[in-house]
């Protein structure tokens, strides 16, 4: 598998990363070298091996359904650039 310039642009767009057109080729090369490592791993025979969902050999702990959090809006919104009537304000988004 190999990525071309448009793939790199698409990936950057999905990640909302602004990249310089001049850097696209070098990003492409870096990404392709990662993918070739993936290709190498893909070549390994994994028949009968269960897919690994997590590197830790442990299972998820569960939490009781009890309210433990209180209203901290004032503190939490003190770091927000803009708020009004208790809402976080962001640049207008309309789908």
């Amino acid at each position, binding site marked *: 598998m190999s990525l071309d310039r448009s793939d790199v642009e698409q990936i950057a767009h999905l990640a909302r990363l602004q990249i310089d057109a001049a850097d696209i080729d070098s990003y492409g090369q870096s990404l392709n070298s990662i993918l070739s490592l993936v290709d190498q791993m893909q070549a390994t025979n994994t028949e009968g091996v269960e897919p690994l969902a*997590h590197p830790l050999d442990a299972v*998820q702990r569960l*939490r009781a359904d009890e309210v433990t959090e209180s209203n901290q809006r004032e503190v939490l919104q003190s770091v927000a650039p803009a708020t009004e009537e*208790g809402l976080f*304000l*962001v640049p207008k988004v*309309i789908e």
Partner: protein
Amino acid sequence: MEWEVVIGLEIHVQLATKTKIFSGASTAFGAEPNTQACAVDLALPGTLPVFNENALRMAVMFGLAVNAEIGKRSVFERKNYFYPDLPKGYQTTQLAEPIVGPGFVDIETDEGVQRRVRIHHAHLEEDAGKSLHEDFHGMSGIDLNRAGTPLVEIVSEPDMRSSKEAAAYARKIHAIVTTLGICDGNMAEGSMRCDCNVSVRPKGQEELGTRTELKNINSFRFIERAIDTEVARQIDLIEDGGKVVQETRLYDPDKNETRSMRSKEEANDYRYFPCPDLLPVIIDDSYIEAIRETLPELPDARRDRFMSEYSLSEYDAGVLSAYRPQADYYEQVVKQSGDAKLAANWVMGELAKFLNQNDTDIKDSPVSAEQLGGLLVRIKDNTISGNIAKKVFEIMWSKGGSADEIIEAEGLKQVTDTGAIEKIVDEVIANADKQVEQYKAAEPDKRGKMIGFFMGQVMKATGGKANPGAVTGILKQKLDALCD
């Protein structure tokens, strides 16, 4: 050409947990904006999710109720996309290893079409926050109270063949989740939301047509209307030589049309991967079986029992069993009154009428099952007639009180005292010379119908309180005596 409609539904059910799926913030509806959005929900750096056991338990309950395989190992994944009401930049959800595997439900439409709808799977995920697009100086307002609310997304196979079947399926899922008590079922508040995948194909063709997805439909009526509208659009389009484009469309109930949601079609690429912050969820048979033990009687079983135990029609039993608070109410009225048929008529008739008119849920009915049961007892023992009972019910609804108190206070007790009725009958006959002459002149087999006039007069004189059976007997006897 004859077309076949193919529909699959994705239903999002908000679980009725006290707290979020991955944080201890409250999920109560209607709080001030962002007062129930904690550091985890806001995705502040350094926070980690901890899975709510109750959300897991509720998802397993649902799986058992739809005859599904339960995933003893399930894995959370990240679904990546950017939107301001999704602070983490990804939704934590399940994909390859969901908590609920393949299952099914049986549905029936009003027209009697029966069908088994297969469920592909159901998975646990978190809800997003809400964006408010009213004008905040050209900005959007974000309320993250809903962010992190646990959802079960139920994905059906494309097994439905009409909008009515789709609505019947959604109703069945609603009945199941409310009966289980895992969702409050309030569609207006968004507790249950529905996306419909719709396509058409020439009848007899195996291959599926291109589908469109209708988003976020929040009532059963709109499911039907949105699908009918979209099906008509697709058929028109194809018959005019066009092609259906795979896209997401929004149903506008005011204009009764669907329209494309995205101006430029861009293939979504969610780049799913297992969430490194959450470990695989492992449950065993004993956990599942312990939950199975707690399952309440499900709507289908209750409907069948209502038919056999109370001799109700399939329709009545279906309506009464579809919503658990209503089914519980009904059974309480039956217990109180000892008359299953009369109870069904009143719960589906007068009570339903008042609930509808006042937009009230049966859980909040001002007339309790005990009150209604007490009223029916007085119909059965002839203390009051059915008509007077409606009057008593109205007073009960607006002012409260037991049937006996109202009957006493309003003096509505039915007059069964023959002497008193005879006196009134005599007066009525004495003041209706003309009608008495007509009665005497009529053929004996026509006289029965003419009693109606006298009956009306007696009821008028007694304010409807005279026992109709007794009045008829006395009238007939006295009038016929005049004819001899």
